[in-house]
Structures are given as structure tokens and as C-alpha cells.
């Protein structure tokens, strides 16, 4: 909004008052100050990350409850459990909350916020006040959307297709739209902060090819934040104007084109998938080498693949519109370009696999999540290619096949990576260790529960069950019941970590600085880190992922 948003005011020239670290235990960022004010007016990227973590967990719970309502309704085919209207509102809330208030900020705003300055050896992000502002903007947007939920809900689906959302829905669309628009600014400012930080704040010696892949992935994600989000902001502004003042730009009743909204919407919302996926890839690229004690295979290719994915993803949005009335030429072009996404994705997956080869593997909780991630992401990605195939798309577009596909990417991908990263860095965030046995058990619950929930939906989709159906033909009931049963296992898998992680905050074992023998500057500082991250300037190792086991060739290069 403002031109000076890029500048922090000169008031920050003074160092905030921080208690002097004592010899045996330096004051960490959690304990440096303890007033409510010191949390809600903090400019410490680590505290802001914790604010985000708490808020997105709350939104995850709201979204998950809505998902539970959806799965409950679908146990019976005839809609006997709830009205169509309730069902439609439930899946809309699930979609809106999960996409905009959980998945998009999930890894970047929490782990990215916390770890990027640590990983590059900086004291903070480039614009700490802007960072706090982003969180407040996020909460303001969330508030608007929650108002619409409290007033009676929205029933348009998270895609807000016109003219249903503008001229026909009688629900609280306007506050939801305003909320989502506002949240976009939070994304933009977070992305801006990350881009500038990664460019300018690296500690001496931290060259681009010494950066962890996590940072590369967040750089790519931030580019998407910057380049895609403003377009949906415009689309949503026009949508708000359409609903409030009937400006007609998207309204067929006045000669407007509803498909134009879909173009603008997917120009953002397809890249948004990579906002969700790329940070997860970054997390996995940290976990796998740490628990294989081996240098990441093909580091440069994985780094370039992140940037490659972020670029290619802008050329494929039309594959959401093959049967929505776009021109045949556009469909053919978008289809073939969509196949190009397979290239950088394959690079990532095969390199992770090669990293595990001949490593020294420890199957701790984060590694279990990482392995689950690789499997589910591969399935989700390849079924995406099915959907990009024109003739197959004509059959399975808008069926449960699509639902299964994007849940494999977003839950199997993003959520598993989020949980894996949460366990991996939990000692760093909190200074406490969680219960390893419970960690493994819940990882197993989530993996099994997820597959039981969503694999049947691939079959349902190919059988022709359309998505967003409150009622459905009876022949689909068996698979739907199976899916709902899986959802209960999945729910249990989500509840366990919430319990044992919170328990660990008070009763967990104190964590050492580097509990996993992992490499990376974030492990060089104490757990939890002091307010300005490092007590002394860290020295950057000459190669990234400087683990004991290295490919022979790469090692000789650096001798």
C-alpha cells in the first residue's frame, strides 16, 4: 500500500532492552520478555513465527472440523444427516479456511519466518515491523472471513465462481471475499520480506550455493507470492464490486464473461498450489539429508528445480478450465505446458531417493513424515498429469478424482511436510524434546488414515461421482463410508501431536542445540535461540549439507 512500507522507521535504531545472557543459560527468545505486549508488539521473527503457528493451528482445527462435517454427511447417500445447504457451507468453509488460512501461510509464515534468518546467519528479516504488520493483516482478513462464518456461512465453494457468487448465492459472500482479499496483502508482504532478506541479509560467506534448499524453496515461493497474489487481489476486488454494485464485468446478464474471472482466479490459484508445495519440498530437503547423514544428492539441480517449478507453474493455469468453455487452442497449449511441471518435480523426488541410498538412515518421526511425503507427493503429482491429459480430464474434471488428487498434494504433501518440519525443528522452536514413540505412532496413523480416506476417492472419481455433492447415488456409498472411516483414523493422527507436543512444552526433556546431528546454521545456535539468533557470528561451512557421507565426486570438487 504505502511507499514507505519497505522502510523501517528510524525508531528501531535503539536496540530493544534485552536481559543480559547469564553464563550458564543465555536468555532465549521465549523467555527474554514475558508480557503480553512483548508478544503482540514483537518484531522478533521467531516470536512472529510462533504467533503464526498458534493462529494457523486454530484455523487448521476449524477447517478440520468442517472436513469432519463433510465426511459425516457423506456416510449416507440420501443427505439424511444434514441439509444440502449445511453441507455446501461446510465444504466451502473447509476449502476457504484450509487454503487461505492454513495451507498458504502454513510453512512459509511459521517455519520460513523462524528459520530463514537463522539459516542465512542474519539477526532478523530485513523488515521486522513489516513482518509483524503481515501477521496483523492476516488476522484482520481471517476476522472478516470468520464473521461470514458466524453470521451464517458461505456456500459458493472456495473458488467463488461467478455468477453463483455474485448474483445467485444468498449467503455471506461479501465478508468472506473481503477477508480473502485482505489476506492476500499479508502473503505479498511476507513474500517481499523473504525475497529482500534472502538477497541482502546473508552473513558473509553465505553464498547462494551454500544456502539450504529450504531457503531456495522459500525464495521461489516468495516470488510466487509477489507475482501471483496481486492478480487475485484484482479479481477479488472486481468480484466484490460485482456483488456490491453489479458492475457487470463478470456478469453474463450484462454481457460480461464469467470465464474471465476463472482466468484471473487460476492465474493465482494454480501457482498457489506451489506456494503450498515448494516450502514443503524445502522441509523434506532438510529432513532427508539429516536423517540419512548424507549430503543432499544433486544439490544444484534441486535448487534450480525450485525456481523452475515457480516459473513453469505460471504457464499452466488453463488446465483447470479444459471443459469450462475456453478455446481449444488454449486447452492444447495449457495441457502440453502442464506436462513440463513433471520435469522439476521428478528432479526433486529422484534426488531425495538417491540421498537415502547408502546413507545412515535413522527412522525418527521427521524422517517417517518425509518418507510418507515422498510417496504421497509422487502419487498426487502423477495423478495431476492424468488431469492435465485432455481426454482424461473431460471425464474426471470436477469429480472426486480431482478431490483425491489435490488432497494427495496438499495433505500428503504440505501437511505431512508441515508436521515433519514441526517435529524436526520443535526442539529448536521450544527447547524441548517430544515423546518419540508417540511421534512415530501418530505419523503412522496419519499415513494410514490419509490413504484410507483419499485413495477410495480416486476410484469414486473415475466411477463418475461429481465433487461437491451433498447427496449421491447409492452405488457410491461403500467407498464413501470407507473414506469417512479413514478420516477418523486421520483425525486421531492429528489429535495425538497436539497433545504430546503441548505436553512437551512443560514436561519434555530439554533439547540440546543440535539433537539430530543436523547441518545448517540454525543448529549452530542454542535451542531455543537468543533474541538476536546468534551469540557469536556463525562461520559458514564451505559446502551445504556437510554431512559425513558425501558423493565421492562432489567431495573431491571441494578439496
Amino acid at each position, binding site marked *: 500500500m504505502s511507499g514507505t512500507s519497505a522502510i523501517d522507521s528510524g525508531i528501531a535504531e535503539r536496540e530493544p532492552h534485552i536481559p543480559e545472557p547469564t553464563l550458564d543459560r543465555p536468555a532465549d527468545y521465549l523467555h527474554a520478555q514475558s508480557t503480553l505486549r512483548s508478544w503482540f508488539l514483537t518484531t522478533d521473527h521467531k516470536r512472529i513465527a510462533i504467533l503464526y503457528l498458534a493462529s494457523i493451528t486454530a484455523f487448521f482445527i476449524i477447517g478440520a472440523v468442517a472436513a469432519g462435517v463433510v465426511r459425516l454427511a457423506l456416510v449416507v447417500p440420501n443427505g439424511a444427516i444434514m441439509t444440502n445447504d449445511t453441507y455446501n457451507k461446510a465444504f466451502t468453509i473447509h476449502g476457504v479456511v484450509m487454503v487461505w488460512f492454513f495451507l498458504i501461510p502454513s510453512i512459509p509464515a511459521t517455519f520460513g519466518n523462524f528459520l530463514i534468518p537463522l539459516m542465512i546467519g542474519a539477526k532478523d528479516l530485513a523488515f521486522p515491523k513489516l513482518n509483524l504488520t503481515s501477521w496483523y493483516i492476516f488476522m484482520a482478513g481471517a476476522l472478516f472471513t470468520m464473521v461470514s462464518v458466524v453470521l451464517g456461512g458461505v456456500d459458493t465453494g472456495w473458488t467463488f465462481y461467478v455468477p453463483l457468487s455474485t448474483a445467485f448465492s444468498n449467503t455471506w459472500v461479501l465478508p468472506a471475499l473481503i477477508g480473502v482479499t485482505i489476506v492476500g496483502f499479508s502473503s505479498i508482504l511476507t513474500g517481499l520480506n523473504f525475497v529482500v532478506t534472502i538477497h541482502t541479509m546473508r552473513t558473509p560467506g553465505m553464498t547462494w550455493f551454500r544456502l539450504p534448499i529450504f531457503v531456495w524453496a522459500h525464495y521461489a515461493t516468495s516470488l510466487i507470492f509477489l507475482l501471483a497474489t496481486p492478480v487475485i487481489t484484482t479479481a477479488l476486488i472486481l468480484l466484490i464490486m460485482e456483488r456490491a454494485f453489479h458492475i457487470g464485468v463478470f456478469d453474463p446478464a450484462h454481457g460480461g464473461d464469467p470465464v474471465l474471472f476463472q482466468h484471473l482466479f487460476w492465474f493465482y490459484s494454480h501457482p498457489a498450489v506451489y506456494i503450498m508445495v515448494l516450502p514443503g519440498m524445502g522441509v523434506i530437503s532438510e529432513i532427508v539429508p539429516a536423517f540419512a547423514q548424507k549430503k543432499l544428492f544433486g544439490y544444484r539441480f534441486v535448487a534450480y528445480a525450485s525456481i523452475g517449478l515457480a516459473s513453469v507453474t505460471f504457464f499452466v493455469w488453463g488446465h483447470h478450465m479444459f471443459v469450462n468453455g475456453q*478455446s481449444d487452442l488454449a486447452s492444447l497449449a495449457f495441457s502440453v505446458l502442464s506436462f513440463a511441471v513433471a520435469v522439476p518435480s521428478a528432479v526433486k523426488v529422484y534426488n531425495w531417493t538417491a540421498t537415502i541410498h547408502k546413507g545412515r538412515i535413522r527412522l525418527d518421526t521427521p524422517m517417517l513424515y518425509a518418507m510418507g511425503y515422498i510417496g504421497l507427493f509422487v502419487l498426487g503429482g502423477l495423478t495431476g498429469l492424468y488431469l492435465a491429459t485432455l481426454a482424461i480430464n473431460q471425464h474426471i474434471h470436477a469429480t472426486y478424482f480431482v478431490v483425491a488428487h489435490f488432497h494427495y498434494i496438499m495433505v500428503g504433501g504440505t501437511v505431512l511436510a508441515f508436521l515433519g518440519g514441526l517435529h524436526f525443528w520443535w526442539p529448536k522452536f521450544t527447547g524441548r524434546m517430544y515423546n518419540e514413540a508417540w511421534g512415530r505412532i501418530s505419523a503412522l496413523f496419519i499415513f494410514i488414515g490419509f490413504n484410507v480416506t483419499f485413495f477410495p476417492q480416486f476410484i469414486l472419481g473415475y466411477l463418475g461421482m461429481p465433487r461437491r455433492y451433498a447427496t449421491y447415488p447409492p452405488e457410491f456409498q461403500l467407498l464413501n463410508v470407507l473414506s469417512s472411516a479413514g478420516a477418523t483414523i486421520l483425525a486421531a493422527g492429528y489429535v495425538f501431536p497436539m497433545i504430546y507436543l503441548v505436553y512437551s512444552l512443560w514436561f519434555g526433556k530439554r533439547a540440546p542445540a543440535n539433537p539430530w546431528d543436523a547441518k545448517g546454521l540454525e543448529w549452530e545456535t542454542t535451542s531455543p535461540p537468543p533474541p538476536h539468533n546468534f551469540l557469536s557470528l556463525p562461520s559458514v561451512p564451505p559446502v551445504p549439507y556437510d554431512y559425513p557421507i558425501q558423493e565421492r565426486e562432489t567431495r573431491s570438487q571441494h578439496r
Partner: protein
Amino acid sequence: MIGERGPRDDVVTPLRSLGPEDRALLRRHLRAPILTFLALLGLLAVNVTLGATLPFAHVWVVELLVVTVMVAIILLVSMEVRREPPLVRLFAGLGFFWVAILMGMTLTDYLAR
């Protein structure tokens, strides 16, 4: 505090009372902005004339070309992209490239329907 001020901070000087050094300094600093200003006004005059008279069919092509030149002048001279390091130039270029993706890919639909 006085010591921190700029050298001419408290001087309210009519232009003619400036010393020759100051005049040279002023000329050096203001030459580019004023030339830019004149160039932009000139190009705008061309566009307004074309828009008001509509001298031939498809005059919009010429008008858009003139606008492109104006935008380039603002970016390169006023916003000093020509003096910036490559990274800033890349950022500026990236924005316009992405606009091209947005427009181009959308038009594959609209121009082929």
C-alpha cells in the same frame, strides 16, 4: 544539531543569488529530470493529438508505441533503472515479463474462441 544540517539548509536563496559552483551543481543534478519532463510532455502531446484527431485507422498501434516509449523513459531515467545494479533491473523486467505471461496466455483463449 547545527553541525548535522546540510550546507544550504537554512539558506533561502533566489536562484540568481546562487554562486557559480551551486549553479553548476544544480545544472548537473537537474538536467536529466528536466529533459525527461520535456520528453514526456512531447510524447504526451503526440498521443493526445492522435487521440483527438484520429488521423487513420488502427491509430491505437502508434499510440501504444508512444506509451511504451514513455514508460521506458520513466523506468530508465526517472526511476534510474539504468543506474541500478543488475538485480534491480531484473526485478523491474520480471514484473513486465509476468504481465506478458498473464496477457498472452489469456489471449490464447479469447483470440481463438
